[in-house]
């Protein structure tokens, strides 16, 4: 075959660096650098968010000692963080205005965003330990990240007043872990008791698949069946789907008299609005995951306020809203009301805020009792300032407790959450109350009643 003479096309220079050139080029170091720089810039920008989004630590300037609220402040559970902050702000006020720790040491607080995900929370916790040498105690973590981060804080000898009901901690062995909120399985018992008291005999169980929601299920099931109730439907809701019609249809077809329920706010709003519109609602009893305005607000809007008021009740840890402890809390709360997460009014009788408040006060009193701010020293005094030992003086505020300790007396701090009695697992079981959609009290069950049902139904063996 004769060779052909080179054409004009052959004489063209190679196709490089022309606009809209689609030939693949090998990645240049510059392009990699640009991409990496943009990723870093995004992370830095996210970390600078005022809500501590992105895993940063921010908050008020700290004093000599620092309490840290370690909870989600971003992501799907961002509302959890606000409830923790709502408790610690009045506590800091009460401590600083009650004379300060050891008579003169003021404390500060800061928030650390765990992002509600164990994969994010672990490096954030490790960073917190390295960058906050003044940290003497933690309010948190929550159910989202506690199993991953409690061991880290414990290894660093930092007392943590965890705000998690996870049953994994029912037989806790971490010496620096303390819990004054009842475990999730206890809330299931209270729900079963209330439904039984109302005369219901058939129930549907509808729970989201997140770890916080499922904790109540095993004990609820055992207690409900022990009380003679039937479970006619048991649905797990994968979170944040665009629709739950199939799940709603299954529950409606079972004709339950009552629904035991928990899921995050978005999932709940979607599911309950579809159930309501397709089939009509029936009475539903929510766990303590539902007794917060960040849940009741959107869900009430989704199903209609009147319908929500008619059918909803929730079970939450019992915290008295009267008496000297509540008065002390209220005084501190009102003094710092303008600093509370808005709207502030939602926290005045919030058992979640009470728990954060009491945790900080207890640690402060433990430091006074131990005459030391060394965490390895004062941690052992946490149960000593709360137990009803012979001769102990009951105190209801930090100032009163500090004064009594200064006089050489033993104290029993009775907090906003009520009497605190740590067992050998560092848990302080408490009672539960049933509230309506307006957060008004309906009835309550004592720790003794719940404990008795737990033993009788075999729910004690769960967790």
């Amino acid at each position, binding site marked *: 075959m004769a060779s052909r003479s080179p054409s004009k096309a052959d004489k063209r220079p190679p196709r490089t660096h022309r606009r809209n050139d689609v030939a693949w080029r090998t990645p240049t170091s510059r392009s990699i650098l640009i991409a990496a720089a943009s990723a870093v810039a995004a992370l830095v920008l996210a970390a600078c968010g005022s*809500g501590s989004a992105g895993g940063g630590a921010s908050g008020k300037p700290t004093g000599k000692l620092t309490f840290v609220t370690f909870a989600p402040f971003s992501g799907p559970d961002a509302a959890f963080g606000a409830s923790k902050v709502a408790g610690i702000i009045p506590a800091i006020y009460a401590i600083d205005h009650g004379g300060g720790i050891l008579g003169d040491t003021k404390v500060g607080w800061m928030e650390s965003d765990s992002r509600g995900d164990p994969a994010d929370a672990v490096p954030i916790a490790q960073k917190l330990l390295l960058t906050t040498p003044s940290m003497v105690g933690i309010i948190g973590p929550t159910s989202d990240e506690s199993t991953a981060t409690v061991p880290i804080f414990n290894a660093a000898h930092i007392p943590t007043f965890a705000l998690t009901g996870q049953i994994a901690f029912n037989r806790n062995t971490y010496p620096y872990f303390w819990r004054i909120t009842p475990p999730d399985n206890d809330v299931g018992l209270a729900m079963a008791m209330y439904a039984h008291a109302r005369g219901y005999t058939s129930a549907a169980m509808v729970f989201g698949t997140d770890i916080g929601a499922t904790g109540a299920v095993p004990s609820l099931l055992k207690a409900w069946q022990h009380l003679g109730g039937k479970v006619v439907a048991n649905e797990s809701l994968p979170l944040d789907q665009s*629709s739950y019609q199939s*799940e709603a249809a299954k529950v409606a077809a079972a004709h339950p008299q009552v629904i035991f329920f928990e899921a995050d706010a978005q999932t709940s709003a979607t599911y309950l609005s579809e159930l309501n519109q397709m089939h009509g609602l029936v009475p539903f009893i929510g766990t303590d995951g539902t007794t917060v305005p960040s849940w009741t607000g959107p869900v009430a809007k989704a199903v209609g306020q009147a319908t929500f008021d008619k059918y909803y009740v929730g079970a939450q840890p019992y915290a008295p809203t009267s008496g000297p402890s509540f008065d002390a809390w209220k005084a501190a709360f009102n003094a710092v009301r303008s600093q509370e997460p808005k709207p502030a009014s939602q926290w005045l009788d919030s058992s979640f805020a009470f728990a954060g408040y009491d945790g900080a006060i207890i640690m402060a009193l433990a430091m006074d009792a131990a005459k030391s701010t060394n965490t390895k020293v004062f941690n052992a005094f946490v149960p000593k300032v709360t137990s009803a030992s012979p001769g102990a003086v009951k105190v209801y505020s930090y100032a009163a407790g500090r004064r009594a300790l200064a006089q050489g007396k033993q104290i029993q701090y009775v907090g906003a959450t009520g009497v605190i009695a740590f067992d050998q697992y560092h848990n302080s079981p408490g009672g539960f109350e049933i509230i309506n959609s307006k957060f008004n009290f309906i009835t309550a069950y004592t720790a003794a009643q719940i404990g008795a049902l737990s033993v009788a139904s075999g729910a004690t063996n769960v967790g």
Partner: protein
Amino acid sequence: MNTLVQAIGFGLVSAAIIAVAAVGFTMQFGVTNILNLAYGDVMTASAYIGYLVNNAGLSIAYSLVVGAVVGGALSLALNRYLFRRYIRHGTQLFGMIVVTLSVAVIIQNILLVSFGPSFFVYRIPLGGGIKLGPARFSGVQLVIMAIAVVTMALVHVGLTRTRLGKCMRATACDAVLAQTCGVFTDRVVDAAWLLSGMLCGLAGVVLVLSTTAFQSTTGSEFLILIVAAAMLGGVGQAHGAMIAAVIVGVITSITAAYSNPSYQDIAGFGVLVIVLLWRPRGLFGKVEGERGIP
């Protein structure tokens, strides 16, 4: 049998939402070859602006229009003033994924800072269900399906009967050849971002009408389903995305109806894996040569 028919009906509601979003996503990816991981967060941003409109007392119809406009404008701006600069500096596919991921994080956190961690709810008239055969639908769900049908019809007509649609398909197929044939690919890319962004914004408002409550992470949590439908249908194939959305929506709904609802995502993504093993380019994907970023 009733349960099956019901489940298919419910699946069509989910499919409607996925379809609007997936068509926009695949259009973006098909024309520009950018896997835009900020797509879900642009949906959320549009939903928030639509919420502000609705909260000001205007009806949902205005929210839908404003959401679409916001989505289109935001997407166009992102391409013009951000993505295109990286492309011109030589950033390749993986680098662009990182860039879009960064944008996603930025948008999500801007929304969180601006609106807080609370959940928001549109003002939707609450009514009873409407029975169609064995299935019951709410008024909102019927409207969502109608919006999806009309939107898909417009997309179909636009892509097949208009010059712009033909140019977009040509650019998606081979940008260099299209340019050689006289297509102004820069303008086509702009149009693709604008139109797909409008679909993104519309999908955002439609999604939160279905979920009822939403927050800053709502759109990003939905993104994986959108990408799955786009991949299942074939990259750049709008009709494929529509059909894939129906497949994914119906399969997940049937799974939820007959078994533990936790398995529905397993079923949906299981179908994707199986189909891609059989047809790596998706159900309607075409064999591709080398593709870069136009």
